[in-house]
């Protein structure tokens, strides 16, 4: 048999084999999901009742089988001949999927009431009501996701077009060729996200605006915390599990100063940052000699100590009841309320509770961008390079005359300062703070954002925050399934991108040509 005939035979056998394999995977999934999800016990009238949820179990098994079939055909079977081809096929499949979703998103954006009609489609299907609701939810999510893909792609194209228009180096001939517009389009992600962030209140205008902006404020707060923690964990390589302590110090500093002395937010903000930085140094001193796991344990304990002090120091912090009526941020003295001196009256607008949240959004966005600017700048300065050198090799640092004590303390202080800023914003946004808000869970979440994004990567933190905070809001309709999705995506990410989403390091100084450094070469830091 010739080689061509063998290849032909393999190809013709591929689809039935893949189908058989997918069916098997589906069966296994059905057995697992059948017992886990298909049958559910619920207490009713003081006794347990068996509730059957077969549609959900079948749907999950079907997703598993379908997913396995697609992976098999698109990735694995192609990989039978050459791995390079397999990834090529994967990239092509991914690209076409993106184009499809972007087109769908464009259509939904243009058609008036597109998304509602799209998810309403399910209601007209002649199927059982239980299935109809799930399909409507799924279609609604697909609609939102496609609109997201469309918006990001459009912003990337706008950014690329602006870059081409402003770049005088490109010679004769047409500038805006499709090839020039789409080559390495992913490089435009950072400016595209910035454009979207600046225009966000306009993009989400409508009945959902308040809810969307609330979520956005939350996401941006976590982005800022992630950027702050990135200094300590990503750059200096010091694993800090008690980062929330500094967030708490910032929040309580603002709340106490503002309620006791009535000082304005903009005066309290640097003070809160300074207090948090001071606590950063206080934590830094005892842990200077600790490394790795030991450092993690002590920082974890420090976070808990701060929280427990906040609970027990009744006279100063209000104990478990927290601090009420923290002064809210006003727009240059104009409060956001229904009074005649309010923001809306001054500008002759109708009162809208979304105004306040939009203003808060821009404040936290400005603070986050300030954090990003400062850390990016510091990275290129001696201190930033010293942090990274410390992560790479502390002993070599000492042999070069670097005072590692000062360098570690400065990393703790700068990271803590940004958490302090974010904390005082949190206090003024909520108007009420209590130790409940500063549990270990928050530290773990911020650390997860930094690690998932890729240690030391600024854009990675943004993507990870959107994915972790935004997506958990996004999947709220799916209730308990969102934890499954969350867990599955974590496993997937850690399998394929063990060093985080953005797994390269950008050098801080360049002689001739900037080359990204593969993460395999970069040390994670031993504490």
């Amino acid at each position, binding site marked *: 048999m010739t080689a061509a005939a063998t290849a032909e035979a393999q190809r013709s056998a591929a689809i039935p084999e893949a189908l058989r394999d997918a069916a098997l995977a589906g069966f296994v999934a059905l057995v697992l999901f059948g017992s886990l999800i298909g049958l559910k016990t619920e207490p009713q009238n003081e006794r347990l009742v068996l509730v059957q949820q077969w549609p959900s179990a079948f749907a999950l098994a079907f997703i598993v089988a379908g997913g396995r079939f697609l992976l098999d055909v698109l990735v694995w079977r192609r990989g039978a001949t050459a791995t390079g081809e397999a990834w090529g096929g994967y990239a092509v499949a991914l690209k076409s999927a993106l184009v499809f979703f972007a087109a769908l998103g464009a259509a939904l954006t243009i058609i008036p009431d597109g998304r509602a009609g799209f998810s309403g489609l399910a209601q007209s299907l002649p199927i059982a009501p239980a299935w109809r609701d799930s399909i409507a939810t799924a279609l609604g999510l697909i609609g939102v996701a496609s609109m997201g893909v469309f918006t990001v792609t459009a912003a990337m194209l706008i950014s690329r077009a602006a870059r081409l228009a402003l770049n005088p180096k490109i010679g004769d001939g047409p500038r805006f060729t499709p090839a020039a517009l789409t080559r390495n389009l992913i490089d435009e992600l950072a400016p595209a996200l910035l454009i979207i962030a600046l225009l966000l209140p306009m993009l989400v205008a409508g009945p959902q605006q308040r809810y969307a902006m609330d979520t956005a404020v939350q996401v941006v707060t976590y982005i800022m915390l992630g950027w702050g923690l990135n200094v300590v964990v990503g750059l200096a390589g010091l694993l800090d599990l008690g980062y929330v302590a500094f967030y708490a110090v910032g929040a309580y500093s603002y709340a106490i100063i503002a309620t006791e002395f009535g000082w304005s937010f903009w005066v309290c903000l640097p003070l809160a940052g300074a207090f948090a930085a001071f606590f950063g140094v206080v934590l830094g001193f005892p842990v200077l000699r600790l490394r790795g796991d030991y450092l993690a344990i002590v920082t974890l304990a420090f976070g808990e100590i701060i929280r427990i002090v906040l609970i027990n120091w009744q006279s100063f912090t209000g104990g478990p009841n927290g601090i009420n009526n923290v002064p809210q941020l006003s727009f240059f003295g104009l409060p956001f309320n229904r009074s005649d001196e309010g923001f809306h009256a001054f500008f002759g607008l109708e009162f809208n509770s979304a105004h306040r949240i939009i203003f808060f959004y821009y404040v936290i966005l400005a603070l986050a961008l300030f954090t990003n600017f*400062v850390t990016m*700048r*510091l990275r290129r*300065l*001696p*201190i930033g*390079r*010293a942090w*990274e*050198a410390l*992560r*790479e*090799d502390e*002993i*070599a*640092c*000492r*042999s*070069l*005359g*670097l*005072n*590692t004590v000062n360098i570690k303390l400065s990393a703790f202080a700068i990271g803590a300062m940004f958490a302090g800023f974010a904390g005082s914003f949190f206090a003024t946004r909520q108007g009420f703070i209590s130790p409940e808000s500063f549990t270990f869970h928050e530290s773990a979440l911020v650390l997860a954002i930094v690690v998932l994004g890729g240690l030391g990567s600024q854009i990675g933190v943004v993507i990870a925050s959107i994915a972790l905070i935004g997506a958990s809001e996004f999947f709220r309709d799916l209730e308990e399934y969102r934890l499954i999705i969350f867990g599955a995506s974590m496993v997937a990410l850690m399998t394929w991108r063990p060093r985080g989403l953005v797994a390269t*390091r950008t*050098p*801080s*100084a*360049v*002689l*001739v*040509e*900037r*080359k990204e*450094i*593969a993460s395999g*070469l*970069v*040390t994670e830091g031993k504490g």
Partner: protein
Amino acid sequence: MTTPSILTVERLTMRFGGLVAVNGLSFEARRREITALIGPNGAGKTTVFNCITGFYKPTEGRILLAHNAPEPGAVDALTASAASHGRDLFLLERMAGHDIAAKAKVARTFQNIRLFGGMTVLENLLVAQHNALSAASAFSIAGLLGLKSYREAEAAAMERAVYWLRATNLIARADDAAAELSYGDQRRLEIARAMCTEPVLLCLDEPAAGLNPRESAELNQLLTWIRDEHGLSILLIEHDMGVVMGISDHIVVLDYGRKISDGPPDFVRRDPHVIAAYLGVEEEDVAAVEAEVQA
């Protein structure tokens, strides 16, 4: 007491619990010379280095570094005082590791190369100039604002980095990660990085380990060039006798933490104590063994 030596080690003893790694060692490293510290494995060479560069606190002894020939009586006055250093006299056993590099200007390399692997070659050399750059950036404030004084300091640092990249023949690899370099390149980069701290004494811990003969020869050239061109004093630990005998002006031989020989290469080469230590035989049997070898 006047001394032409840059480094004077006197009665240095280092104990780890019951183990005596270095026992009453005294030797001198002369200015603008290459002094080699040799000895069989476990003789305590790296321990001596770690004492000199502040990674260990010696149990006993004095390690004196003199940037210039000291005034008569200055050394005794400094030793009697509580201070760790004068203007250009340094008692290294009293100083912290990073101060020895920053103030006393002693630079070192490591037996198992310690580069900042995830950073580029250029960045490695810029980290080495941290103290000068950090002062110019005024605790990062001038740097954050992008002031002219800082930009000038940064340009000067780049220039020095480029100079040493050319000297070590690494200029083409400037923007590559240090971990990507070949073993020989990494060894040279470590020397370039140490030189960027502008040392007066360069301590090299087995710089030729793992190099092929051609690379060893290049290393010899580089080290003699550094000594002659920059007037630097070099202290080196080495097992490669081609390197040691080829470039050393002075050799100190250690065995079991004690000095067994001290002198110019030709003297050390013939010293029966040294041959005995290296061959692992008693001194009395050296003549017999030599005769056997030559037969």
